[in-house]
């Protein structure tokens, strides 16, 4: 697009709100009963975050890497690409994050999860819990349950629970880049679609990133 600066966000949005959310319904239908596996993996991940420590940290990185790969391939490349020409680039971004998480999981020094004792740990667990409850946004927004977005199958809840893990790992900036970028893209899309849930992921991202910065400042002081 040679004159990209003349385009506003609404010019780039090429599908309707109904089509966007219907995509999750079609995705869920196509992957059933994969939701049960995704839920089991989500609960296992939550348990890792709760438990804390190095071994749980390595397992969490591995589980998250698999979730990011799954979303990259089955959602972005196979599903979202049918209505959004930008989806293959999102798939690459998610695959890249999966590689980073695999690298984290495979390091000799395991990525240690902070034990959930202070407010930071509780905040991280709260974010993870909300990520697992993400499918509730569909009925809360007046949409059918079948359009619920699940961790491991849809991007937003997968990114949300990743924020919790990044917080507990006290992860470096490198691991925050793709999740934060996706948060901006998703929020912009939902704002343009005038969806009430546009705020959900940015709020979780702000909480996680804010807490991480605060923790870093305290550590430096």
């Amino acid at each position, binding site marked *: 697009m040679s004159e990209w600066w003349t385009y506003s966000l609404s010019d780039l949005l090429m599908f309707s709100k109904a089509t966007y959310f*219907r*995509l999750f319904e079609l995705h869920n239908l196509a992957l059933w009963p994969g939701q049960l596996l995704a839920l089991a993996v989500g609960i296992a991940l939550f348990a890792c975050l709760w438990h804390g420590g190095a071994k749980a940290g390595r397992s969490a990185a591995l589980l998250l890497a698999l979730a990011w790969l799954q979303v990259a391939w089955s959602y972005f490349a196979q599903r979202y690409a*049918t*209505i959004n020409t930008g989806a293959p680039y999102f798939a690459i971004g998610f695959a890249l994050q999966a590689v980073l998480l695999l690298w984290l999981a495979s390091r000799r020094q395991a990525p240690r999860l902070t034990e959930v004792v202070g407010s930071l740990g509780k905040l991280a667990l709260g974010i993870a819990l909300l990520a697992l409850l993400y499918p509730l946004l569909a009925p809360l927004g007046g949409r059918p349950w079948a359009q619920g977005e699940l961790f491991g199958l849809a991007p937003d809840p997968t990114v949300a629970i990743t924020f919790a893990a990044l917080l507990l790992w006290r992860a470096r900036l490198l691991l925050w880049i793709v999740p934060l970028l996706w948060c901006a893209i998703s929020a912009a899309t939902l704002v343009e679609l005038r969806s009430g849930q546009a705020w959900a992921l940015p709020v979780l991202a702000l909480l996680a990133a804010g807490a991480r910065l605060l923790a870093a400042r305290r550590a430096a002081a």
Partner: protein
Amino acid sequence: MQGVYEERRSLLRAVLAGGAYAAIGPALAAAPAPLLTRPIPSSGELLPVVGLGSWITFNVGDDPVARARCTEVVRAFFQGGGRLIDSSPMYGSAQAVIGHALAQLKIPKTLFSADKVWIGAGARGPAQIEASRTLWGVPRFDLLQVHNLLAWEEHLRTLQQMKAAGRLRYVGITTSEGRRHGEFTKIMETQPLDFVQISYNVLDRDVENRILPLARERKIAVIVNRPFRQGDLTEALAGKPLPGWAAEIGCTTWAQVLLKFIVSEPAITCAIPATSNPAHALENMGAARGPLPDAALRRRILDDVKRLT
């Protein structure tokens, strides 16, 4: 149009011959007003003043339910007398969805297929056009336009060659949302074009200053995109009662008023509202029948829409 008058005359003769004069009143009242058409200046071919756009509304991917609904939109559009359907490779799955609908309807003979070329490298234009044609499932396009002036010099050369070879009937350029109007007018002044496509509606009337007079002068047909400001106008007017003057021009909805405002501008050949609702497609085609607003009523429409939005 001729056909409708012939139909009415035949009906009149038949009824009078049967001595049932009283029966003709309701029969004539039920006959729809003739379809409003405008000639394409470069050929004289007549086009209905309302066409069908596909931006956003037809980008439904491979959802079978939504595809079936889009097919019904296309069916209603043809039933209402529509001909011109417009799309672009930029519109996601819209071309494939149009192709699906046309296949279901066995490609109506009245179809006027309008698509675009939208790719940065001129050399890749022919391949993109061929891919688009395959998606539509048509033997050739009636009209191809350079989308948003992207690599326009190279693409226009390709399109003119296709036209010369009989593989295309008309050539055009497009812009939207008032973009690059300076360059757009320069191309209109210097290139042999059959069509231009621009954004125009009750509230966005910049094209009235230069582009529309130039189109008349250069005998170029004009297609209007975003007649409802991508749904914002109809949304803002929803629930607001139609003023009494709407009945004077045979309008029963705000959408029809907005379309009649556009097509009453003499330089306009065709407006292309997009919808995913079959009832709305038929309703939009209603704007292609009956009287059009005169200059005084156009001013009233303008004032009322500004006041209400």
